[in-house]
């Protein structure tokens, strides 16, 4: 084997390694983005499950003449916001709005049940309330998983060599994780990051 051939082989091998790495990193970023989309779809799916529970709760309130105007308004507002959530586009701002409305409704329903003892002791109503609380648990868990996938995706496009591959090929932007503004409102400390 001549020296020229050896050098060519080394260059060829190096080029193969570089190309394989680029393809692998690029596909990794795509897979990571797809995981984010799937996690987002899970969040939306569980948020929308509330639509199955809300009519039954409304009926429960009507059956027991528990016409709390505030609660019924919250139900209407939540239903409208849920309809605006799209599984195809990540919209953390709208999700925050739905989350806040949902928590407010759940708290309102508990207060209403306290005010109407017959409603509180209704097994059917209690069952739907339990169902709503479990759906809330699953939404919270789905959001945690969504944040985990977003963090992983952001790492993939911001850490080298992912950052170099992303700048040239994928051109993805970092995604925003979900934060609870109500929970954050009680915390004065805000970390300052010099560079995102």
């Amino acid at each position, binding site marked *: 084997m001549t020296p020229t051939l050896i050098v060519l082989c080394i260059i060829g091998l190096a080029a193969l390694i570089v190309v394989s790495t680029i393809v692998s990193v690029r596909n990794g970023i795509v897979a990571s983005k797809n995981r984010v989309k*799937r996690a987002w779809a*899970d969040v939306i799916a569980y948020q929308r499950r509330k639509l199955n529970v809300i009519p039954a709760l409304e009926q429960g309130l009507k059956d027991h003449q528990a016409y709390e105007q505030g609660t019924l308004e919250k139900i209407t507002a939540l239903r409208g916001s849920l309809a605006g959530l799209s599984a195809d586009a990540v919209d953390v701002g709208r999700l925050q709005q739905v989350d806040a409305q949902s928590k407010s409704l759940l708290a309102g329903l508990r207060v209403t049940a306290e005010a109407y003892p017959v409603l509180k002791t209704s097994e059917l109503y209690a069952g739907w309330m339990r*169902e709503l609380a479990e759906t809330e648990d*699953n939404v919270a868990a789905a959001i*945690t*998983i969504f944040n985990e996938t977003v963090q992983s995706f952001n790492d993939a496009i911001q850490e080298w060599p992912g950052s170099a591959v992303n700048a040239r090929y994928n051109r993805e932007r970092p995604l925003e994780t979900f934060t609870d503004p109500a929970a954050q409102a009680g915390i004065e400390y805000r970390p300052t990051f010099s560079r995102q």
Partner: protein
Amino acid sequence: MSHNRRLDELLARVRDQAGKAGKEEDFASIFTMLREFRDSVGPLKYDNGAKWKAFGVIAALGAAWTLAYFLAPELQATLGDAGYYIMGGFGLALVVLLAVIGTANAAFDEISDIIFEKDIAFDNGLTEVEVEDGHEMYERLRERFGDFRSRGDESRYIRDLVKGEWTGTEHSFPFEYYVFHYVRVYYVTVTKKVGNQTVTTRERRTETLYRYGLLLDFPFAKGIAVTSGGGSYDYPEGFQPTSESFSGSFEVGADDRQTAARFLKPAVVLAFTEMNAHFSGLNVEIDREGKMNIAFSDSDVLDLERRSSIADPDAFEAEIRSHLALPKLRMLLQFVETLKKHNDSNF
């Protein structure tokens, strides 16, 4: 009657009553007896004064004999090796005495353990069940659950079985806790020098291992296994939830993907991830008849550290009267309740 003799009698009575106790209140008379003894007879420990005196005498005689033997050549010539045997006799007597002194108070710990373990069972609603045929039980479980398959080569049986009942906020259920004993057989290549030759042989070695677990009814899902600790499962479909933390630790097998997707709701996925931080080799399987097996390698689920003993009846009674909670068992049962809660839906 000497203090030690009276203490022997007291401990025999305490041991007998501890063995017969069927509820926590039955321990009250034990503490009364212990306090009466302490207040009227003396401290709740063996008096080793006489034994230490005997130790001193034997040690002095042994030293004198050793000195005489080495300083008198005519004694060495007359007795020969018998002189060394006598020295050995003195040494042996000292060792035996030390052992007797050292273990004199061991009965306190032994009886305290009996009371403590019984009280753990009372406080947590647990009942030990005699395993009539551990090998046969293993065979039955092996038919049903993958965790028992591909594990160990011989001496596989269920060693212990404890029954309990969990009362949760939404679900209450009976369960069985088991200890599975098995032996792994493996071979190592050993090279030895025999004279001028080097001989290589394969030697058989064994390792005794244990798995622990819970068995209970789970009527809300069938034919699914979520595993991180080996075993052999025959579910045709795989499934990966979105969580990377979950997928990095667990594998999922199910009869169909829909079963897996329905079972692994986000809250359930997070519960598994949380449990993975506390239990090693966690495998959860619900067989096709709705029976659940949660298996793991942690041996400390029913363990709790005892802080005092019958030697201090006041402190020990306070410890026994407190609720001796088993945090890891509680964690497991709350986990099961989470799984039930999120799978009993009408949707």
